[in-house]
């Protein structure tokens, strides 16, 4: 289930089911984001869980899902820095520290998580045939190649791709709605 503006209103009012919806939709991406720096899934999950706890305590200030995401990514980033500070062997995290302190690479990681989250969600929601085509297209194959590999016509590839784009569009639409709200 995706997060609606209605959920955010409920969340602000302290509805924990709305909080669960937000948790479910962002938990995985945030964990993998954290894991990039720590390479330790268990520690990453702890940090993300803490971040959601902080979010709950600040819920009344949240204005939109973009606001919530920004908040979470920032809290998680600080969580990682804190974690590294308390490690005895800092050497292991030298690169992570650099990445975290550099604003550009921090943003790169967010972009990566966001894009991959939606691509994966799209892929998982596709019927089997569509999925195969999507995977091949993601590997950089053009329509002709895909048609040959799967032994189907180029036109079939095209129509199946349309279905995929429609799904993808729905998910992108979510982001754009949120951005529109933000720019109002």
């Amino acid at each position, binding site marked *: 289930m995706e997060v609606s503006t209605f959920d955010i209103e409920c969340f602000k009012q302290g509805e924990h089911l709305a909080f669960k919806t937000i948790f479910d939709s962002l938990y995985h991406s945030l964990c993998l984001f954290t894991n990039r720096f720590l390479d330790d899934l268990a520690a990453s999950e702890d940090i993300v869980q803490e971040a959601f706890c902080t979010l709950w305590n600040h819920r009344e200030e949240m204005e939109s899902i973009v606001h919530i995401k920004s908040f979470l990514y920032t809290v998680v980033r600080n969580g990682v820095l804190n974690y590294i500070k308390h490690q005895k062997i800092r050497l292991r995290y030298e690169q992570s520290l650099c990445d975290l302190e550099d604003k550009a690479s921090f943003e790169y990681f967010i972009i990566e998580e966001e894009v991959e989250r939606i691509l994966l969600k799209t892929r998982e929601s596709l019927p089997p045939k569509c999925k195969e085509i999507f995977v091949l297209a993601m590997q950089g194959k053009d329509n002709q190649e895909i048609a040959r590999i799967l032994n189907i016509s180029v036109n079939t590839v095209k129509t199946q791709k349309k279905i995929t784009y429609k799904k*993808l569009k729905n998910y992108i639409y979510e982001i754009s709605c949120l951005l529109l709200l933000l720019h109002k």
Partner: protein
Amino acid sequence: MKYLEHPFRISQLILKSLEGQLEEAERRELDDWLAIEANRKLYITLSQANLDKKKALFEQLHPERSWKRLEKQLAFKRQPRFLRIVRYVAAVLLLGIAGTTVYWYQNRSEIFSSSIQQTEIEPGSAKAFLILASEEKINLESDRIFSLQQDSSVKLDNKGNTLRIESGSPALQASQEYQTLFVPTGGEYKLVLEDGSQICLNSDTKLRFPLVFSSEKRVVYLEGEAYFEVAPDSQKPFVVVTQGMEVNVLGTKFNVKAYQGDRSVITTLVSGSVRIKEDKSSRTALLRPNEQCVYSADDGRMQVRSVDSQVFLGWIYGRFIFENETLEEILKQFSRWYDVEVLFQNPEVAGYRFSGNVDRFDQISTLLGMIEKTYDISFTVRDRTVIVSKK
């Protein structure tokens, strides 16, 4: 830059470009960003993203465990019911005091020349009537045990917002006469039948049932919405008859929504299996758990689809749960529970869709306020009428 808006904007542009749907201005925006070598590298990585690796990592996570710990950490358990009731009582008392004060003040100095009376709209509560075959009407507001004149071996125990039928053997033939449990708008009630089957009745619902079932079949008649947990008895099928169709079961959990004004009867199955039979053509449909049958009363069509049954059961847990539901349907449910009329000034807004999960015991103004924030809709509440208009 407000918050971290930038990375989300870029994510959106990348996805749109992978989809091939970039508009000219967006293309330029993305190109500017791609002018930097490192950015282009990221773009290439993403357009060939290794999603399998990602999925494998996803599967190693334990969101449920984290959520449980989070719940414990924040200690947000549902407020016990009595506390909520105390809150309502306190609110009513306060209103009472305020009212008296205003009245007193008004009488003293006549500052308020016109008395504006705003009716407070309260959520529904447990209430029901038992209508006997003799058309006698019994209000079930007080706890008591009683029996109907014809047969004293059948006891009716009304306690804790539940009416329980208990039959001692042998029951008289007369006990097979049908009685009606009527739950008015703004009400809900529970019923436990003689065979142990439990039924939750939603607002504005009538259920006709016998005190004792006949020897072959257990038949009840429904108009409105009810959730059934049917006691298993393979010898005696349980049948719910509604307008135009019936649901046949042996022992299962399911919800039936069959309001007179609605164009369709919706049956949602939680567990077990049920068979739905149309009256006219005797066509049937078999439901599996988490499937729903939408029967259209107009053309007799039956459509089966997969759903999350919990969404349709929100009401028995004291919630309104909507998933991409039209405003028309949402307000219809509100009108039954809060006992209000709804008037659309702009008919097109009736089709707007919303998702949400809210407490049924909240004030209607709170719920309407949430919807108002989401769309350009405004609600005016006058007496017991909600007027919906476009901003």
